[in-house]
């Protein structure tokens, strides 16, 4: 089906992605700075996910790119053209919103055809392209349904088709999966990625869900307080976070007290190298991933800074998350489920910290997993 659709000209066959540049974008709402000089370049056909907590400025960035809001400063460049001053309807962007945004009085195909009509495309072409694009998202059989006759996931797929049908230069996805249940969300996430790759359109995806961002994007930008903290491939963001904020926001992190000395941190008798060797000596909190902590058996009588009791095991499928109480702090570890099964609750265990480079957070220790 999809091959036929692509051949019919819905997707990449007819259009390659374009480069998108956000240059030093600034936006304030009264006293609140939503965007503080954001600079970001999306390569043609690339999918970049902006990830961050509520209020970090990710949606503002997307709305400035769409032209739904005006920037206080900076430039938006789409395909080499400065569109900063253009209104939303002249920017050639397709957008899928967080809220269900299908026009309730129109059927699915009429929704998809709306943008084409705005571009004064003839009725026959309009109908053909609308149906083709609905087929692209797997909803060819739903053309005559109204929004209230479709599930949330189907509505968002129609919204995706509607955004793609106009063959925009850039696709903007504003948390399109957040209103869906977990199973549909995962399925639609893969569907969006498939369609995006098939069409080859440059895409900016905004989400607060780290799993979503890491799973779908070519690159992930983690934002905080209107600034880009780190931009890179998902693996780099997870494995080599540039700042403590990124380390704590992306994935689970244990916060363990230690002493920085000579470019390494000593945590409970284990010396671990630092990501930032320039950190001055002194007390610090090391941010350690659960998978960097391994577990070995310990005799009942054994004591030590890394000896404790298993207090909970969370089954995650192939892996399980085991929580170990060291007395003054609880530590999360991630083990293969078969291995975790050998440590039921109450078992005394010895933890081993892998000497992977870690980040240091300077604030007072909370001594709990973040």
């Amino acid at each position, binding site marked *: 089906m999809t091959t036929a659709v692509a051949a019919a000209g819905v997707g990449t066959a007819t259009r390659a992605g374009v480069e998108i540049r956000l240059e030093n974008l600034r936006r304030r709402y009264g006293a609140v700075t939503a965007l503080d000089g954001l600079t970001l370049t999306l390569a043609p056909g690339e999918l970049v996910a902006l990830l961050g907590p509520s209020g970090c400025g990710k949606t503002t960035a997307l709305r400035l790119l769409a032209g739904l809001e005006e920037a206080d400063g900076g430039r938006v460049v789409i395909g080499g053209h400065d569109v900063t001053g253009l209104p939303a309807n002249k920017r050639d962007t397709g957008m899928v919103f967080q809220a269900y945004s299908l*026009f309730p009085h129109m059927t699915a195909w009429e929704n998809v055809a709306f*943008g084409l009509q705005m571009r004064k495309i003839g009725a026959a072409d309009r109908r053909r392209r609308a149906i083709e694009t609905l087929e692209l998202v797997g909803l060819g059989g739903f053309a005559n349904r109204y929004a209230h006759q479709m*599930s949330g996931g189907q509505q968002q797929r129609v919204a995706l088709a509607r955004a793609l049908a106009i063959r925009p230069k850039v696709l903007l996805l504003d948390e399109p999966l957040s209103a869906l249940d977990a199973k549909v969300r995962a399925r639609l996430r893969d569907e969006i990625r498939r369609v995006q790759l098939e069409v080859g359109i440059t895409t900016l995806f905004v989400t607060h869900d780290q799993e979503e961002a890491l799973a779908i994007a070519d690159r992930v930008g983690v934002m905080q307080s209107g600034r880009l903290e780190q931009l890179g491939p998902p693996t780099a963001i997870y494995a080599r976070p540039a700042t403590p904020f990124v380390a704590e926001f992306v994935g689970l992190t244990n916060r363990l007290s230690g002493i920085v000395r000579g470019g390494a941190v000593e945590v409970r008798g284990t010396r671990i190298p630092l990501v930032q060797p320039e950190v001055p000596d002194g007390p610090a909190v090391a941010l350690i991933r659960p998978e960097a902590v391994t577990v070995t058996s310990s005799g009942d009588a054994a004591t030590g800074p890394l000896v404790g009791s298993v207090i909970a095991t969370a089954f995650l499928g192939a892996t399980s998350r085991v929580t170990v109480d060291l007395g003054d702090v609880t530590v999360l570890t991630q083990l293969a489920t078969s291995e975790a099964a050998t440590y039921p609750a109450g078992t005394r265990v010895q933890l081993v910290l892998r000497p992977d480079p870690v980040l240091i957070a300077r604030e007072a220790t909370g001594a709990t997993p973040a």
Partner: protein
Amino acid sequence: MSRNRRLKLQIFRVAVFLLLGAFFLVPIGAMFEFSTRGVTDTAPRTLNAWLTIAQTPDLVAAILASLGLAVLTSLGMLLLLVPTMIWVRLRLTYLTRAMEFLCLLPLTIPAIVLVAGLAPIYLWMNLNINDSILTLAFVYLILVLPYAYRALYTGLAAIDVKTLAEAARSLGANWSTVMLRVIVPNMSVAILNACLLSVAVVLGEFTIANLLNYVNLQVAIALLGRANATVSIAVAVASLLFAFILLVILSFAGRPRARVHLEDTGLPYPGAAGGGLR
């Protein structure tokens, strides 16, 4: 719920329905009975009063004038309120309270005060521009503002105006297209409600027309009542019936489309074969 309890509930509902029905229908029935009485107590029933309506030129003129006023007022209200309210909701949200205050203000101003203020304006207008009764549409527009505002507000609140407008904008629609092709069709029931309320207010208005010396339907009924009570009552019943018919039309026009649930229908949807595509 037990069967006994369901039965009691059903009886209660029917009783309330009958009581309310009697509350509305008994006076109307009495009016109809009065309008069909013969000249004497023993004379047979007659529809003479009803037939006389069409043969009373002043009354026909007043009915036409009131209908004309109802249409003009409704159109004016729609042209004034619909785009303004949509724009305030989309772009000028900080004006929402001020607009609500302005629109509800006429409720607090007695008709006599309105007339005191408007009389000099109407006098000037009659002398220099036009003395048509249709000029009353200006003041009626003010009268219907509170009712129309509430009806339209409810309609706007029921849809996600901002998201729909932004979706349409991102698809290339200009602002007029956003309003006419996206927002207005989704508040059609509210618009119909606002029109019905406006028509009802205009058809029932007496004080202002009377004080400004215009003869609309209610003034004509009052004048006729002094000369021929049965015809006057027949006209009153007819205007009630007219309002009732409007209400019925509205309830059918505004009925939401039947919802079809996926689990009820199976896939694909029967109408999806493309036959309905335009």
